[in-house]
């Protein structure tokens, strides 16, 4: 399959952009189409972009504390609009405890500082393929 579309965004007032740019490049180099929303996004903006751009996966880069507030809000918005778009979270600040909590709330995958490029690409491909099958 080709043409996996991924939205990469950073939440709230989190200023750290390096990780998001690195992952965006990585996915682009792996042949995916990356829609890069950059910094300063609220959940509503992300949902709108995801719909407009018809993406297969939403990837959130988190290097500040806001993710525990905004990610559940984003999942609720997707649920309300009956959008079955997998949400993935990446960032070194996501603790093991928070990872479990996010996964239990419905986040499709969490990538910590030890995640490899291959693992990220494969997980996104699998999620996009599973969605195609739906």
């Amino acid at each position, binding site marked *: 399959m080709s043409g996996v579309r991924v939205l990469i965004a950073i939440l709230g007032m989190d200023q750290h952009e390096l990780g998001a740019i690195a992952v965006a490049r990585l996915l682009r180099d792996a042949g995916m189409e990356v829609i890069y929303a950059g910094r300063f996004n*609220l959940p509503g903006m992300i949902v709108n972009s995801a719909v407009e751009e018809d993406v297969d996966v939403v990837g959130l880069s988190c290097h500040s504390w806001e993710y525990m507030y905004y990610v559940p809000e984003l999942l609720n918005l997707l649920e309300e609009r009956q959008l079955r778009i997998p949400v993935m979270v990446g960032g070194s600040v996501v*603790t093991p405890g928070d990872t479990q909590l996010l996964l239990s709330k419905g986040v499709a995958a969490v990538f910590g500082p030890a995640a490899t490029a291959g693992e990220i690409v494969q997980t996104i491909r699998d999620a996009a393929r599973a969605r195609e099958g739906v």
Partner: protein
Amino acid sequence: MPKFHGFLEDTYYFSEVGLDSVEEMALGFIEIRYVVRELLKRGVAIDRFAPRIAILVNCRMDFFEEIAKIRATRRLFARMMREEFGAQDPRSLSAAITCHTSGLSLTSQQPVNNIVRGTVQALALAIAGVQAIEISAFDEAYRTPSPESHLIALRTQQIVDLESNVAKVADPLGGSYFVEALTGDLEKRIWDMVLSIEAKGDPAELSDKGWFRSLFDKAAERYAAQIREGKLPKVGLNVHQVPPEEDTMLRDVAERKMDPCWGRIEQVQEMKRKRDQGRLAAVLSDLYRAAKAEGENLMWPMIGATEAGATMGEVGGILRMAYGSRYDPVGGTEPPVSL
């Protein structure tokens, strides 16, 4: 405010994308020179503001290079002020240098090692004779820093200062064949880069064209490759790793949550309800108009706005609007008054 630094050149935040020390200071000097020239154009004498310029630099892990960078910066700053801008006050020639230790140099793996990194960096900075130091919290590579890690950062400085005594002597490495050669080399390379960038044109135009952005992108990729290929050793990350299940020391603090300061948020909301809306509208309109007009001094309308109870966020938002972007970049709030 005699001790207020009206202009802090912050080379830390942009160099954290992975710039090397030459690129860091060259871009810093580009910005300092730009601001100095603008102020001179407005008729402010160099000795009236040069003593209040401060520089906030980065500190990575290459011990002697970071020391030499700071020594080279002092030489370049003094020479530039004296020979190029005609400063005469000795205070205009001495750069006030503060430093944050590099967050990028820390690892999420085996975080206790970050305390050691902070110590090496603090020692370098103390030997380089900076005016102030902030050591990055050891846990910031994997969480919003905890109160415990802030305290360890402070204690590190106190140990370096009070127990090692290295700060009791000025420039202890002066005369060292290695440090002097390195300082001379960095001094030349930093200045060559400053001149080569300025030869490309007006830095503001270069910025609009994305020239700096592309420099940052290249540096970020270069740094990532150095880490990936192991050319820049990072203990615990690309060399001497331990399995994640054994990497538990000092990790427990990461799960402790800090709440936002709800009490403070309520105080600000209360203040906003009580302030005089008519007066607020008048001062913010004044600020908006002044910012839209070319060449007006914004200092007075900003002081007026804060005296009428406008917050820093509101002042920033009004300025953003005047310069053609959104009041709130995140789109979560609206301006407190209609303009």
